[in-house]
């Protein structure tokens, strides 16, 4: 449907321009009717509980529900805002340990997955025939499960684990496999190597003054990424600075935030970990300056060592051993009893298929045929009966004998644990938009039991914990069951064993090209593959949108004779792929990073987007050594949002090296007040001929702390959800027409001979003397009394003069009818408080004016001062990098931030007097390195 074919030089069908055929139209109308009418009329099911006081049936007032998303089987607590039964926005649940009120891009975009029209399956798909499924499985059930194999993804859901146990008890000869393409299994295996028993772990990054990451990306990978970023952000304040050492084989959010970064081949991380542990244990001073500094800091201060999910268990064992040696256990890292189903891997299943023992394979979740093409994928067709249960059919569902669509997390009852064991609950916020069933329903069918309602199952499980109805109510209001966090487990490391683990190896270093496999920052291992927000979001460091690419350093590219977009043929083992190359400074030499999660046949949006790297991935490994990479002649067009990745001697994003902020760059001599105090306001420095507007309360302003920003891009997706920002598609992105109201610029520079990144979120600056307002011929962009640079969409005739004259280039233009062409089902997620912009109209960041207005109106009706509302980007930011509030209130965080010596205004010398300003990025390198 949405293949990006081009007819006479213009896009025939873009994601925003899906041509709707009769069948799609009927389906969309059915969904609209179902979603808009039925839940709109229906009261919430009596069992569902609101997180906030019930507004009753007041039109135009949102209802909020606490619920839980799943990330790698672990729970992520969120609060969902719904209007008329339609979820329209989600935020992190402040009471959930994995969120603390923040969210990242993937969680934000989970909202769109709910409405994904491809969940309805391919056209002509018949409703699930439970009788046929039962008939197929009945002979196996009669043989107590012999020949029946069940493949699930790792899960922490106590209810589901209980149900799986019950299934195994009912069918003792059934085989259970637990597998996913990217898990915490290496960490669990490493802990087991070290302590001899299975353990779960979680970090408390705020407690560590020194963090050493060994090919690990705590800020960007794994179910705790938001929790870790939330703990990390406040520690980048100048008065509480931690120090981050990262040795990594690719470029990650954590690596870009590092004070000391070392790029090395993934195969060399094990030796580095050994040397680290030897140095900590025996006091040997290592030769490597990075390691020497890290060891010295780890010895002197409260530290934490983290190993990456792509590294083998041995590296994890060494990292945990290092934590034991420096006394971090129980402080910055906590061990608890295991809470997730242990990963068994695919090998037993593959061997069983090869022995012709598998009569039926039931897979719950994921897309194993896509993610394990060489092992399970090749043999999937040999299995006599296959049943797949997932939200999107994908490679597995489209090949399975039977496909059962799954429910979205917002459509079902359920539970999950965070890494610290805290239980959070899912509750159905909306009636199922499409035909769908929970995993429990499938399990019941498999073991041929009478299905129990999921809610009843959940309540039966937790009734002992929460007690009476009031306790149940409390748990559903909070979204978490208090007191369910797992207690820390005492551990006693075997120091002799650690010494053996850390012995240097005789193995020669690897020489050939190494492939690094990493989940895509937004698509994960493939979960987000059909989500247009995530597909379009520019990747933090490559700035690519709608595509992945084989990433390599300039030196590697030169050696291979490769330029951006050149097609490569990559072979490893029996697998081979063709993919475009992208040059990424900061990677080690002879290393090619292949982001996973792309090229999945998950639906119309995913089609044609990127390539799958799974064919060349050995098993679940994070890297592969000695791969063949050959450059081909052809080139593939890639859509890059930011072609220019260096600052070219300018300083839109600034570094702070401890001295007071220096605004005198480029020969302009402003920026310091006459009395030399730090109370100057660089955003108001020059005299002007323009009318000086008095600042009355509230005078909205925003300060973005570049020291805290890790460049994750959560703000951009939160803004997209809040402000009905359309998706434009690869072709339009390549033409420079991406619509994000807040963009995260990433610059890569050489600082002191090292590759350094700086991320800069850029929303509208809301200039007090806005160049855009001066040139608009129709007064469609004007200033309001609260200091906002407002857009009057109705009045805009689309001359684009304002965008040309905006020195920050934050204005976005509706070159086509992006919104009108959007799939009707996606339109259901729109925020009714925000105008949907028409073709030919300019738009840009409004500081979430709808939220400001709501706060002002509430203050008016209640006769009290305006309570500081939050913008969407600020609310979701995991590191708390964005401060927003009333400038005239000297006590407000934003006013305080503007008094910071790191404070500066981007392009302040133009005298635009921006209301959005920045705090320069601090770093905390060791002075002797």
């Amino acid at each position, binding site marked *: 449907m949405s293949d990006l074919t081009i007819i*006479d*030089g*213009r896009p025939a069908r873009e994601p925003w321009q899906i041509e709707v055929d009769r069948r799609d139209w009927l389906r969309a109308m059915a969904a609209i009717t179902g979603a808009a009418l039925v839940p709109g009329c229906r009261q919430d099911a009596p069992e569902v509980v609101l997180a906030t006081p019930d507004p009753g049936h007041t039109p135009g007032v949102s209802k909020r529900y606490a619920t839980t998303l799943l990330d790698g089987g672990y729970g992520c607590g969120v609060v969902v805002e719904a209007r008329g039964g339609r979820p329209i926005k989600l935020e992190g649940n402040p009471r959930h340990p994995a969120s603390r009120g923040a969210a990242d891009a993937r969680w934000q975009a989970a909202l769109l997955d709910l409405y994904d029209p491809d969940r309805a399956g391919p056209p002509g798909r018949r409703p699930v025939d439970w009788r046929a499924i039962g008939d197929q499985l009945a002979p196996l059930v009669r043989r107590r499960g012999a020949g029946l194999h069940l493949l699930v993804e790792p899960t922490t859901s106590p209810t589901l684990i209980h149900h799986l146990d019950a299934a195994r008890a009912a069918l003792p000869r059934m085989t259970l496999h637990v597998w996913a393409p990217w898990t915490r299994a290496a960490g669990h295996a490493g802990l087991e190597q070290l302590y001899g028993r299975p353990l779960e772990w979680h970090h408390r990054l705020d407690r560590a003054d020194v963090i050493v990451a060994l090919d690990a990306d705590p800020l960007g990978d794994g179910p705790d990424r938001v929790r870790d970023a939330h703990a990390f952000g406040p520690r980048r304040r100048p008065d509480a600075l931690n120090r981050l050492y990262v040795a990594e084989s690719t470029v990650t959010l954590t690596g870009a935030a590092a004070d000391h970064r070392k790029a090395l081949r993934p195969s060399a991380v094990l030796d580095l970990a050994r040397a680290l542990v030897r140095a900590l244990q025996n006091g040997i001073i290592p030769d490597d300056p990075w390691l020497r500094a890290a060891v010295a800091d780890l010895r002197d201060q409260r530290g934490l060592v983290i190993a990456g999910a792509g590294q083998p268990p041995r590296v994890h064992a060494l990292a945990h051993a290092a934590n034991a040696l420096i006394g971090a256990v129980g402080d910055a890292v906590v061990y608890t009893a295991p809470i997730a189903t242990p990963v068994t891997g695919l090998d037993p299943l593959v061997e069983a298929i090869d022995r012709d023992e598998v009569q039926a394979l039931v897979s719950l979740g994921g897309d194993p045929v896509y993610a394990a093409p060489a092992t399970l994928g090749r043999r999937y067709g040999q299995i006599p009966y296959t049943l797949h249960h997932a939200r999107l059919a994908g490679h597995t569902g489209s090949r399975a004998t039977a496909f059962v669509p799954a429910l979205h997390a917002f459509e079902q009852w359920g539970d999950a644990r965070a890494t610290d064991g805290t239980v959070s609950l899912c509750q159905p916020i909306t009636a199922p938009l499409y035909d769908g069933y929970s995993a429990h329903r499938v399990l019941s069918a498999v073991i041929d039991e009478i299905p129990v309602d999921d809610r009843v199952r959940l309540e039966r499980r937790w009734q002992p914990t929460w007690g009476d109805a009031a306790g149940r109510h409390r748990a559903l209001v909070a979204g978490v069951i208090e007191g369910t966090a797992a207690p820390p487990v005492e551990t006693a490391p075997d120091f002799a064993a650690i010494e053996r683990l850390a012995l240097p190896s005789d193995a020669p270093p690897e020489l050939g090209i190494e492939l690094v496999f990493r989940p895509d920052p937004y698509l994960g291992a493939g979960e987000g593959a059909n989500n247009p927000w995530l597909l379009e979001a520019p990747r933090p460091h490559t700035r690519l949108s709608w595509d992945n690419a084989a990433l390599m350093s300039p030196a590697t590219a030169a050696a291979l004779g490769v330029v951006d977009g050149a097609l490569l043929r990559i072979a490893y083992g029996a697998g081979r792929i063709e993919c475009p190359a992208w040059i990424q400074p900061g990677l080690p030499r002879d290393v090619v990073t292949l982001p996973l999660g792309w090229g999945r046949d998950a639906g119309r949006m995913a089609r044609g987007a990127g390539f799958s790297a799974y064919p060349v991935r050995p098993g679940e490994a994070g890297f592969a050594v000695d791969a063949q990479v050959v450059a081909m002649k052809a080139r593939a067009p890639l859509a890059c949002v*930011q*072609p*220019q*990745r*260096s*600052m*070219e*001697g*300018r300083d*839109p994003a600034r570094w702070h090296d401890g001295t007071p902020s220096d605004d005198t760059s*480029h*020969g302009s001599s402003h920026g310091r007040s006459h009395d030399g105090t730090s109370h100057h306001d660089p955003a108001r420095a020059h005299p002007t001929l323009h009318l000086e507007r008095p600042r009355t309360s509230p005078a909205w302003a925003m300060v973005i702390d570049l020291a805290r920003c890790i460049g994750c891009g959560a703000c951009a997706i939160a803004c997209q959800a809040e402000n009905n920002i359309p998706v434009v598609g690869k072709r*339009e992105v390549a*033409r*420079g*027409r991406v619509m994000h109201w807040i*963009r995260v*610029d*990433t*610059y890569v520079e050489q600082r002191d001979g090292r590759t350094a990144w700086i991320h*800069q979120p*850029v929303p509208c600056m809301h200039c007090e003397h806005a*160049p855009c307002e*001066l*040139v*608009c*011929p*129709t*007064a469609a962009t004007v200033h309001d009394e609260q200091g906002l640079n407002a857009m009057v969409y109705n*009045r*805009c*005739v*689309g*001359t*684009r*003069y304002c*965008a*040309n*004259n905006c*020195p*920050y*280039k934050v*204005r*976005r*233009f*509706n*070159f*086509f*009818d992006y919104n009108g062409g959007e799939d009707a089902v996606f339109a259901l997620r729109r925020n009714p408080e925000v105008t949907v912009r*028409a*073709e*030919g*109209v*300019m738009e840009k960041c409004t500081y979430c004016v709808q939220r400001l207005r709501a706060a002002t109106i509430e203050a008016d009706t209640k006769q009290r001062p305006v309570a500081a509302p939050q913008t969407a980007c600020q609310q979701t930011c995991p590191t708390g990098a964005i401060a927003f509030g009333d400038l005239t209130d000297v006590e407000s965080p934003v006013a305080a931030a503007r008094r910071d010596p790191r404070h500066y205004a*981007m*392009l302040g010398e*133009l005298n635009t007097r921006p209301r959005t300003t920045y705090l320069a990025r601090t770093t905390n390198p060791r002075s002797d390195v």
Partner: protein
Amino acid sequence: MSRPASKLYAPGLTDASITRAITAPPIDGLGPRWLVLLAIGTTGALVLAWALVETLRVGVGLWGIQVPVGWGLAIVNFVWWIGIGHAGTLISAILLLMHQQWRTSINRFAESMTLFAVACAGLFPLLHMGRPEYFYWLLPYPSTTQMWPQFRSPLVWDAFAISTYGTVSLLFWYIGLVPDLAVLRDRARRRLTRVVYGIFALGWRGSSRHWHRHQQLYRLFAGLATPLVVSVHTVVSFDFAIGLIPGWHSTIFPPFFVAGAIYSGFAMVITIAIPLRWGLGLHDYVRPRHFDLIAKVLLASGWVVAYGYATEIFVGWYSGGHYELWIVERKLVGDLAGVFWATVACNVVLPQALWSKRVRASLPALFALSIVINIGMWLERYLIVVGSLEGDFVPSSWRSYWPTIYDWAIYLGTMGLFILLFALLVRFVPVVSMAEMRELIREPVDPADREDES
């Protein structure tokens, strides 16, 4: 004969011979050459119509514009056409007031060129709007919403300047045409032709009272048009000079734009005069002396343009500002160097050949140079509009601009429209002002224009 021969017209011209020669095409029609011209023009106009309908139907997204380059070929073409539109009014109004006799035989088609160029130019600001159906919001009109245009925006000034210029140019052209239309009415052989010309001739009888009022009005309009010649391109230059983008924000732009407009306009006069003279056999009216004089104007205005380039570079360097220096560097050696040096070659270096009398006397050379100058002037506007936007303040936003087939179709289409309008002009309207030619052959010959006796 006591009258010396003039270089501005062939010897032996009489009232009757002028009338016979000039009224021949409208009365008798034109041959196959004209049909070829008409076919070319019609084809181009159809291309324009297609691109225009598609743009209105689908949206300006069909063009190559994006962020940061919000104005692309459309605005380049707009400035270019408006510039071309300058020479006509300058020739007819300013040279009239300054009693320059050499304007007489070329003013009609030069003015027509102005009208058609303004018509072509006027399409672009309308088309490039995201919502062209609301173009009238740029004009002050009594609306129930009590909304006025935002008068600080140069686009509003543009709307005034261009509509005024177009209106005055049209009226000026028409007033000059009235006596000639009456001649056509009187000589028309078919009733329909006579009626149509008769309507447009406004009952002209050639009485001395008519002539008196005609001359008063004509000179009045010449006076009105004169400041407009300067003001229109000044206002167009404000579109850029008011902006703060490096490469736009410059106080030299108003005079620089006016000089550029005169330069490109006179070049276009040559581009049109040479084929017109050949096609209609106007050798008796458009003489080598005319080309010589136009070439000298070209040379002079070309030096003003060159001065503008030099000033831009100098001020960029002298300002010491990072962003100004950056755009200078881009022009001299950076990504804009190709376009910049091509502009300099077309507008400054090659036109120096006009110092040579032999070049000024060679029509092929002049024709080639006039094309070169118009290419150069187009490149200069590309440099200003697109080049400046491609790389402004924040590096993350820099992006190259690539026009699409629609951009080119509209540009070439407006050329087609221009050719079509000219084809219709030569067929239905006297391309030399008969009334003024008759006056000219009676006037004393200016010593400068006296044909050498030898």
